[in-house]
């Protein structure tokens, strides 16, 4: 479905975030997958309670696997490590760190801001960015909280100003130190 959607969007010259395409395909996929499971198994279940539980089970498994695929695809789309490996691969197998840094950081930041804007999570007003919808912000807060539970240092973002960069850098150093100590 994703393959067909990409080709269709390209043919119609419609620009849509690749992640949105994956999400829409996953949602649309409920129909054919649901139909197959219904025909093969669910329609033979006589008890209503058993049918409801079986449907919940199928929904949970399908959505968890679709979510996993979304993340796998997202890695190919946004993961810095994948990008670094690809750039070196495309450069014939070797590249200087300075060459990597000079192309990399600004382009990666621009890509991320564009994606977040396309997904309507942030919006630009003049020269400043603001939150639009709060889904990814809620996810970010939950991820930071879960990281704290696992004992992984995460930067405090509650104050703005130059202190923020110091705390971000400090958090990255603390994570590196923890990993080196392991």
């Amino acid at each position, binding site marked *: 479905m994703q393959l067909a959607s990409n080709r269709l969007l390209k043919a119609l010259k419609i620009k849509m975030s690749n992640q949105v395409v994956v999400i829409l395909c996953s949602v649309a996929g409920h129909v054919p997958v649901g139909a197959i499971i219904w025909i093969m198994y669910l329609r033979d279940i006589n008890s209503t309670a058993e049918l409801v539980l079986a449907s919940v089970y199928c929904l*949970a498994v399908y959505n968890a696997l679709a979510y996993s695929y979304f993340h796998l695809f997202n890695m190919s789309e946004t993961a810095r490590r994948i990008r670094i490996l690809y750039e070196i691969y495309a450069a014939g197998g070797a590249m200087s760190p300075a060459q990597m*840094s000079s192309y990399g*950081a600004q382009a990666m930041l621009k890509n991320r801001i564009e994606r977040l804007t396309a997904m309507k999570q942030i919006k630009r007003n003049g020269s400043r960015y603001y939150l639009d919808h709060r889904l990814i912000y809620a996810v970010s807060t939950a991820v930071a909280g879960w990281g704290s539970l696992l004992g992984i240092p995460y*930067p405090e973002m509650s104050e703005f100003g130059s202190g923020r960069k110091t705390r971000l850098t400090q958090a990255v150093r603390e994570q590196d130190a923890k990993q080196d100590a392991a």
Partner: protein
Amino acid sequence: MFQRILFSGLFIFLFCLCIHVAVWRTRYPKNRPAALLFVFMVLPVIAGAALLGTDRLLTGVSISIQVLAGAYLLHFSLSAAYIMSYPAVEAVSPSLMITLMIGSSNGSGVSVEELNSTFDGKFLLEPRIKDLKDAGMLTESKGLLSLTLRGKRFVTPFIVLRRVLGLPIGGG
């Protein structure tokens, strides 16, 4: 039957999650991907096999393979979802950091300049290059970064996926 499968699958997943939290807080593993796979994928299989074996020995009545397989499929799906999400927890994800920065600005927003100065090469790239070297996917020699065989094997499926989907390689 599905009630047993649902509750068993959820119970196995939550139990593995508790083991994961306990291990991470007490003995932060060096090889975290392997540790995650062991806790979430291998341990339940060993426990399930042990359960099947002892149940047959003790009572003469085996636990339904169908129930175990169904429960494991649910647990596997939930575990795959969690494991795929884990890198965002461990590595400071720039996208999540950007939204946290903006969301924490108390409505005053964040300027473009502040974003540019915060997310520079030192923050975005150097820690990931270090991760790749630590994972044996990159080596540095005479001032050049090179892919190892492991690095080539790791990146190739992603390149193939993008080509099959008709997309250029992601922007990072």
